[in-house]
């Protein structure tokens, strides 16, 4: 018997995700005041923006599977509309269409999986379902459907191909929001694996599935990023690659969940590294997309081949780009290094080869962002950009918020790990506390 059927269930993991959504949304809202200034239909833009934010918060805070589907749909529809919002550009409609098609297919499959579970247990409450889960053949099919549908929504390889098509053409702020939206889907995947199926599941197989998806995402993402000459497509491929780190860290934790000794030795640290990387990635990838938007705002295109010398006129944007680029490349002392360090060291104890590949990917990431920086910001001032000015103040404030968060996280990683990352890891691992929170038993 479920005490309340449709509920919001807030634990440390969902709060962790909500912090990410709130921070990036604030920065993007301020940034968009300038970026979208010349566009028509601004009231519709901000309405859709708030719908997207509401959808993401709903996904992160709901304790009900059907509501997870509903909020996913809200976020997807708003995200697609925002991607295609600037109809004056020819490629935005295509990006929006691709996003809505893959979102709809994923959502339908998720609904089908929820239907399978509801038909068996007459329940859609996550905690209540976890409490009675039998791990029947139908449950396994439901798990496969849920896992792969969320994997497509988060852009894991080989289901990633919509990501560059969509992120590249969306308004810069919306690209940053879509990164967070994808992370909300990653959260849903973790919630399904750890909380919904946790105790009853053969974690080793599912953990390795997540690890393989992570490794593929890391490697193919970064190797596809480096040849790109569209700055936002380059960043979109890096978003895929960075998702791989999160999947790798949490996948290792998932694989050793049934082994208390390995979990204590390195499993929790790997999970904390993966979860810390989620918030770091949201901040630096958000910042990088905003800097790409600032370049687009001033030069009118995203083609790195045609850019050059912009650092002469856009000094603050250059600094923000450097902060984001060094962070995503895992260069000390930036926050990207802190989370990658946790992943490398703990994953090494699980399987050294995985750790070595992760380090190689970081190296290629640095090479890729060196190329982007060299192409856009360095070199002589080009005649066609002689009149270019620094980005407007609102855009600088939006970028500044994310840069400040990155610097704070870089200097005080221990504070973040101890106060918000470790509790989130514990909330994911401790399925009983989540279930008891709903079923009315003290954890």
């Amino acid at each position: 018997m479920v005490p309340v059927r449709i509920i919001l269930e807030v634990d440390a993991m969902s709060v962790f995700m909500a912090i990410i959504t709130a921070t990036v949304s604030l920065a993007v809202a301020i940034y968009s005041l300038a970026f979208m200034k010349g566009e028509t239909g601004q009231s519709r833009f901000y309405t859709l923006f708030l719908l997207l934010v509401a959808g993401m918060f709903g996904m992160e805070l709901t304790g009900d599977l059907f509501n997870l589907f509903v909020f996913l749909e809200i976020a997807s529809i708003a995200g697609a509309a925002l991607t295609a919002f600037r109809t004056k550009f020819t490629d935005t409609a295509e990006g929006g269409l691709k996003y809505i098609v893959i979102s709809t297919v994923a959502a339908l499959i998720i609904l089908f999986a929820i239907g399978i579970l509801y038909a068996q247990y007459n329940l859609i409450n996550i905690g209540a379902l976890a409490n009675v889960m039998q791990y029947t053949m139908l449950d396994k099919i439901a798990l496969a459907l849920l896992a792969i549908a969320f994997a497509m929504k988060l852009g894991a390889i080989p289901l990633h191909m919509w990501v560059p098509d969509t992120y590249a053409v969306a308004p810069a702020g919306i690209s940053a929001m879509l990164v967070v939206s994808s992370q909300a889907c990653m959260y849903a995947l973790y919630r399904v694996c750890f909380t919904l199926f946790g105790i009853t599941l053969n974690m080793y197989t599912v953990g390795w599935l997540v690890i393989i998806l992570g490794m593929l995402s890391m490697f193919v993402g970064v190797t596809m990023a480096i040849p790109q000459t569209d700055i936002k497509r380059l960043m979109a491929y890096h978003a895929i690659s960075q998702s791989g780190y999160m999947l790798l860290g949490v996948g290792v934790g998932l694989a050793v969940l049934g082994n208390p000794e390995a979990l204590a030795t390195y499993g929790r640290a790997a999970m904390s590294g993966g979860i810390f990387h989620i918030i770091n990635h949201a901040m630096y990838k958000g910042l990088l997309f905003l800097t790409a938007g600032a370049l687009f705002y001033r030069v009118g295109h995203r083609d790195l081949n045609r850019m050059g010398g912009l650092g002469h006129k856009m000094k603050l944007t250059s600094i923000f780009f450097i902060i984001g680029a060094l962070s995503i490349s895992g260069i000390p002392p930036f926050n990207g290094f802190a989370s990658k360090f946790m992943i490398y060291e703990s994953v090494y104890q699980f399987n050294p080869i995985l750790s070595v590949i992760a380090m190689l990917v970081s190296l290629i990431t640095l090479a890729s962002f060196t190329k982007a920086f060299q192409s856009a910001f360095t070199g002589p001032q080009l005649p066609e950009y002689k009149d270019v000015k620094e980005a407007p103040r609102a855009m600088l404030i939006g970028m500044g918020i994310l840069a400040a968060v990155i610097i704070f996280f870089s200097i005080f990683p221990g504070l973040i790990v101890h106060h918000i990352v470790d509790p989130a890891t514990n909330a994911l691992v401790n399925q009983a506390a989540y279930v008891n929170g709903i079923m009315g038993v003290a954890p």
Partner: protein
Amino acid sequence: MIESPSGFWGPVAWIIVAVVASLVGYYIWSRGEKAHKKGMQSEEFLMANPRLTEEKVHVRAHNIYWGFFEGLKKYYDPTVRAHTGIINDYIIWFVALTAITAIILLIVGVR
């Protein structure tokens, strides 16, 4: 400071070391030849070819790492070809991966 299973990371200590190293570097640099002034050396000599204008000197994005792509041609050709941009293909990948995952979970992933 954060701890991992086999070490720790303290960014404040790292920053202090970096600042000290920078100060040492600056000290060594400041001991250099003081008589040297900017523009003292002659212009670069490029095999008697006319000097390129500044904008032509800038290396464009598509020229960077060309050797890397050439060396990994066997990897890049099929990988780039798989990115068709056609949404039907995206869904085929999705269906295929879902089927493979379901089969793995049904056959291997038993308790």
